């Protein structure tokens, strides 16, 4: 089942002369882990804003084409209605937490929706535990690290139990280790709860292995769309300026020099280690 679908979507910000999104047509299936990547200025954030109706409701501007998310036309439903279907996690963790305690922040969306208190308590605790920050629940946002703040932001959208979670470069303010932890949390949500994940990310080294689907954008257009192994393994992708995982690069270099390591393109270090082990295993 397709949960996010855009058809010939084009968008121009108010006052903009050139369209920011140009004829974007993508399909993301329910339960998928989709990865959107591309160089800076490729308008990845803009497409995220379309998914929950911030575009066109909050940003105005001109939107053409069709977009359906969770069977709703985002142009016809206000953002607060879309918020129940799509959770959006932003780049800067600091600017998406407004309350004075973590649990209050996680409850914010539910409070807005008018969820009764007992139910709210349950869902807040559930989300806090899933994000692994239950012990921090009474702290204030400025007392915790950036990685923890970002997990609070994830818990906060999670508490609203959306079908889709869209994360716009959630780790760009974080160190590699915190980033890795965030990706693990996201992967868990996708695998265990079946939530559709749309992750916008540069760090393909850490994320490509989780992805079922990869979309590469360039200057407001989709230039590659499909299976991560075929796309990242292809020669043309490297030329766009996408950070191909190092394992994949090594695989390509070795293949070029005549060493073919199995038939599957590796996306992470453990995958390439596996095929290397297999290659050096004495055959009898």
């Amino acid at each position: 089942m397709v949960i996010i679908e855009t058809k010939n979507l084009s968008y121009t910000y108010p006052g903009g002369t050139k369209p920011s999104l140009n004829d974007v047509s993508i399909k993301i299936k329910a339960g998928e882990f989709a990865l959107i990547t591309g160089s800076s200025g490729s308008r990845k954030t803009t497409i995220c804003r379309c998914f929950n109706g911030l575009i066109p409701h909050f940003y105005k501007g001109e939107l053409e084409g069709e977009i359906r998310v969770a069977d709703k036309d985002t142009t016809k439903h206000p953002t607060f209605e879309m918020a129940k279907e799509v959770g959006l996690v932003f780049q800067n963790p600091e600017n998406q937490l407004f309350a004075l305690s973590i649990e209050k922040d996680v409850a914010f969306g539910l409070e807005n929706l008018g969820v009764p208190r007992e139910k709210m308590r349950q869902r807040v605790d559930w989300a806090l535990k899933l994000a692994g920050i239950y012990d921090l629940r009474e702290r204030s946002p400025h007392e915790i690290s950036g990685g923890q703040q970002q997990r609070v932001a994830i818990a906060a959208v999670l508490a609203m139990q959306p079908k889709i979670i869209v994360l716009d470069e959630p780790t760009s303010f974080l160190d590699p280790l915190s980033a890795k932890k965030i990706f693990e949390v996201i992967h868990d949500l996708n695998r265990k709860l079946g939530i559709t994940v749309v992750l916008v990310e540069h760090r393909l080294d850490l994320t490509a292995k989780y992805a079922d689907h990869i979309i590469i954008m360039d200057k407001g257009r989709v230039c590659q769309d499909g299976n991560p192994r075929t796309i990242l393994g292809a020669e043309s992708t490297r030329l766009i300026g996408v950070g191909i995982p190092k394992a994949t690069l090594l695989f390509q270099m070795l293949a070029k020099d005549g060493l073919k390591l199995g038939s599957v393109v590796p996306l992470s270090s453990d995958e390439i280690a596996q095929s290397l082990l297999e290659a050096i295993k004495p055959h009898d």
Partner: protein
Amino acid sequence: MSVFDGLKYRKVSSPIHDLDPRIKFFYVCAIFVGAILFWTILPLLILFAIQIPFVLLAGVKREWLRSLRGTIFLAAIIFLTNLIVRYFASGGALLVTDLEFAAAMTLRFIVLVGSFSVFFLTTSPDHLGLALERTRMPYEFSFAFTTAVRFVPVLAEEAQTIMDAQKARGLELEKGNFLKRIRNYIPVLVPLIVSAIRRSLELAEAMESRAWGATKKRTNLYILRLKQGDFILFVITIVILMVTVYVRIYIDVPGLSQFLSGVS
């Protein structure tokens, strides 16, 4: 600023911290009324003394004293102004009663600052926001209040970063006369304001994405419930109010010098 230090809330748990902010505010108002009603030292001293067990129970003695120390400058101004006005009003003669009056006015100020300081030291901004909501004030106001409190440390940190960055480029903040010094802060203020505006846009976006404004009937994770301690404080406050009003109306409170001579 040391005065503001005395208003900063720190998260600790004490019987006073757990009290309902509305009742605590009522108590502060009662002290306030008491302080306004009297012109003489004795009752003001009593009002001041009433707060001491409160402070000790809350375990905020150090912070409270610091906030009082912060008032020294203003208190001195109040004392001197009163003294000078009295001096000229009485035609160049200064009596003991004038000294007493000036001291009483200063003490009144200290009582006011002291009681407000206890209130802010022991009331979490979250509770305060909640109390504001309870007063039927639109939610937007209490939200703006708690968010402002939330972003104070963030903005302070940012101001420091900008200041360091501008100093690294040769900006001298501590140079020149008073006006020049104020002007020196423009290169700090402009980026600070710009980034605050940008931050507010991001905040608005995040709020929208979390169903801001979805329903008029908003619920809240926390509720304020009156407990035993709240009733006790309520009774204490009523007693304080009644006693002060009674004393003010029916009893002629002696000045300190009269009182002392009466005793000896």
